[in-house]
């Protein structure tokens, strides 16, 4: 029962694929695998800690102002990770741009807070958010991998060429906006065909 709270986030209730939430960063920063990893890390940090806090104090939040309260909590954690990445890796900070602060308004985080953390105990919340984070990471790394490979010809992570081969004439369109929508669409269709979603 408990393990399901974690695994459902991977496929069955994958926040991006099934619930179609959190699309903005999924498409925006998936031009490079490197960015995706940075985003996945920041996202997991904010999602897990903010929801734990919300779950802990859920009894004290008045119903009418719960959403602003959640958001303020989330925003605080975003500020922390924003300052952290700014100091730790300015280049990544540059790459993620406004999408780092925009984690605040990622529908997945608020959605989990509203649907799960504000109703369930701490332990389940931890598993749920960890699962959601993993599911999110899985998808954005996959999409960024596809886009980077076809769009630049190879996959470079922290200065290392990740794949043994490269494309000679990469299609730059893949790392531009149309490519993002396209990969997402085809991915969804394939998953649907395979009966995953």
């Amino acid at each position: 029962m408990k393990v399901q709270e974690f695994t459902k986030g991977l496929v069955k209730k994958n926040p991006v694929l099934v619930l179609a939430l959190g699309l903005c960063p999924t498409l925006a920063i998936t031009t490079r695998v490197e960015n995706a990893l940075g985003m996945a890390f920041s996202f997991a940090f904010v999602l897990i800690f903010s929801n734990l806090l919300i779950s802990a104090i859920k009894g004290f939040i008045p119903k009418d102002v719960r959403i602003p309260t959640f958001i303020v909590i989330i925003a605080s954690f975003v500020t922390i990770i924003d300052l952290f990445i700014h100091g730790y890796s300015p280049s990544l900070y540059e790459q993620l741009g406004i999408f780092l602060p925009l984690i605040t308004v990622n529908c997945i985080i608020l959605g989990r807070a509203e649907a799960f953390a504000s109703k369930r105990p701490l332990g389940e919340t931890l598993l749920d958010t960890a699962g959601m984070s993993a599911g999110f990471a899985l998808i954005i790394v996959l999409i960024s991998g596809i886009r980077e490979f076809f769009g630049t010809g190879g996959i470079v992570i922290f200065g290392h060429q990740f794949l043994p081969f490269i494309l000679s004439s990469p299609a730059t369109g893949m790392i531009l906006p149309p490519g993002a929508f396209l990969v997402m669409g085809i991915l969804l269709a394939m998953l649907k065909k395979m009966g995953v979603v």
Partner: protein
Amino acid sequence: MIEEIAVLGSLGFFFSTLLVVMSKRFAVQMDERVERVRELLPGASCGACGFGGCDDFAEALVKDPSLLGNCRLMGADERRRAGALLGIEVKETWWMVANVRCAGGSKVLFDWVGEKTCSAASSLGEGVLACKYGCIGLGDCVRACPFGAIELRGNTPVVDEDKCRGCGLCVNACPRGVIKLIPKDAKVIIRCNSPEPGKVVAAACPNGCIACKLCEKACQVGAIKIENNLPVIDQSLCTSCGACVEACKRKVLVLRFPKPLATPHAS
């Protein structure tokens, strides 16, 4: 540090006061029961209850709890809980499944071209088949099923009873009234829908019931009566002995093996 806290604190205070005041002034009475009933509904929004969808139905239910039986998809458990919520007692109901009352095989009256749906075909002349009550086999029921429980094998629809939830949309979709809902524990079913006298049926279709009454005579417990030229089976008397099935020369009667019926529905 103090300044920062003061600034954000006063911002927060200002907005929360504003919100509290506004929410009091613009308060909307919401019936919480609607939401809770809605959660118990299956959410397929199939429309079989006669309302626009599960949301509409939930609202109607709160006003008139007696409509609860309209939803054919709810499991027994959900129905009981919804009943408790609405303050009515729910009797146990048996689960229904769709049943195709035609084995196919009617003679075709004429060649035809046009829109390939049963409904459209049945509006050509008197319908394309010599039997006016038979299955046309173009799959209107297949398209109507929201659960993918019906598929065409050859020209006859076959119901997958594990997927069928007895919503009755196929019953409404069939222009010939070939599909009927039957209790899931029905033991013997008939595969003909024509109330015409035997002579007419025999002329139109090799598989139709000609009301010969052999089944009625064969049944030892008196569970079969011929009404309107078709056998009517009292399932509560039937012992699944199969004598009627044996007796039927045209193979109109089919014995369903009784399935375990402990849980009528588990979602």
